């Protein structure tokens, strides 16, 4: 057993919870990887804020159409049954609660469900994009992230220290070590890596882990 999951494995685990036919928005960067790991027989419909439903993978290099891009401004393709729409319709889908799932990255997630993922503080150029809209729109807002920062500090914390993206919005976190639900202002441990004790996981987590009786093993394929 590896000591932690790779990003691809975290994305794989998150993809297992997406139902067939779900309307899904994946944040730019790491969360985009979730699309690659849909279980066989299931097909989610992916939404991009700039105005496409049911887009597919990137085209081969040299075949890009730069009017056909995703929110990360990368070239994409269309699947059959795709649709274009303007930005107000796109964010009506978001804020109107019409998306089933949004999966985002995080700098910090608090046990209250608060999320910080858009700003690392007052220095530099602030940029927010659609993150603040997405966290209040989708029926389920999940985060995929390493369990700790590059310096080994917890990313799951009692209260966020960085500027918030949204208050009490995240309901599930898929990390490199565990799957954790946020319920009633607590981190509830659902799955953890087999080789990891609860004490070791707690030591790497900023808030108190609530331990139900049926904590499952977090098992993922080699990817």
């Amino acid at each position: 057993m590896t000591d932690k999951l790779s990003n691809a494995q975290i994305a794989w685990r998150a993809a297992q919870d997406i139902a067939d036919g779900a309307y899904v928005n994946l944040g730019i960067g790491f969360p985009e990887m979730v699309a690659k790991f849909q279980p066989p027989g299931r097909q989610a419909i992916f939404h991009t804020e700039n105005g496409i439903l049911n887009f597919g993978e990137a085209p081969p290099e040299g075949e890009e159409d730069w009017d056909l891009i995703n929110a990360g401004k990368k070239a994409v393709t269309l699947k059959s049954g795709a649709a274009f729409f303007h930005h107000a319709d796109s964010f009506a889908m978001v804020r109107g609660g019409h998306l089933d799932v949004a999966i985002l990255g995080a700098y910090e997630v608090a046990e209250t469900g608060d999320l910080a993922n858009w700003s690392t503080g007052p220095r530099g150029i602030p940029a927010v994009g659609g993150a603040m809209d997405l966290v209040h729109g989708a029926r389920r807002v999940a985060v995929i992230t390493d369990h700790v920062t590059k310096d080994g500090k917890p990313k799951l914390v009692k209260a966020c220290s960085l500027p918030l993206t949204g208050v009490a919005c995240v309901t599930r976190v898929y990390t490199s070590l565990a799957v954790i639900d946020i319920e009633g202002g607590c981190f509830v441990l659902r799955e953890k890596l087999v080789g990891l004790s609860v004490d070791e996981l707690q030591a790497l987590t900023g808030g108190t882990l609530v331990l139900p009786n049926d904590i499952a093993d977090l098992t993922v394929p080699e990817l």
Partner: protein
Amino acid sequence: MDKTVADLATAIANISDGMTVMIGGFGGAGAPIELIHAMIDRFKATGSPTKLIVINNNAGNGRIGIAAMIDAGMVAKMICSFPRSADPRAFTEKYLAGEIDLELVPQGTLAERIRAGGAGIPAFYTPTSFGTDLAQGKPTAEFEGRMYVQERWLKADVALIKAEVADRMGNLTYRKAARNFSPLMAAAAKLTIVQAAQIVEPGGIDPEQVITPGLFVTRVVEVADARQEEALMRDGLAYA
């Protein structure tokens, strides 16, 4: 009624100093590069228009389009959601030097504020940004047990729009995801200026396919060979 004009310089006439200008596009998709460059040409020849407030999702990329306007010193303030790009140097330099203002708006709120401006709705409530730094100073209210932030409409003196097909009455279609903010901006400006890849006679667009009705459009100019921001970036071009 014929809203077409002969050339880009005529299309951008009457844009004057201090105006608020909405510019369609998300990244390069839908960016009306030729209208923007015509405005830069006029600025270089006459010193006007300058001190503009520009509304776009982004704040320019590389040395073309909005980035070239910023480089030229035409922009006093950007209202946008994401002032970063592959090459955000133009905005970044001016911002860090204190030479350009920024109003950062969440992307969906930006779209809805523009929509509200076009629809004559002065304010609305959204859950977006509640409890965050971007809600500071804004009124909040509870509806059905949930907290919302009041946001105000955005209107403009001018909108610059890139369309795919226009008819002479100003009815528009867009190409793929180049639609993005453009239908909203077309409605929210007093003067809506469109560059279209093709201009056809009235009736040349199936009414079922019209995305922006001509009522929202003031002028249309044909730019058959419009360049894409990404293609210009890849060629390493600068408009300066």
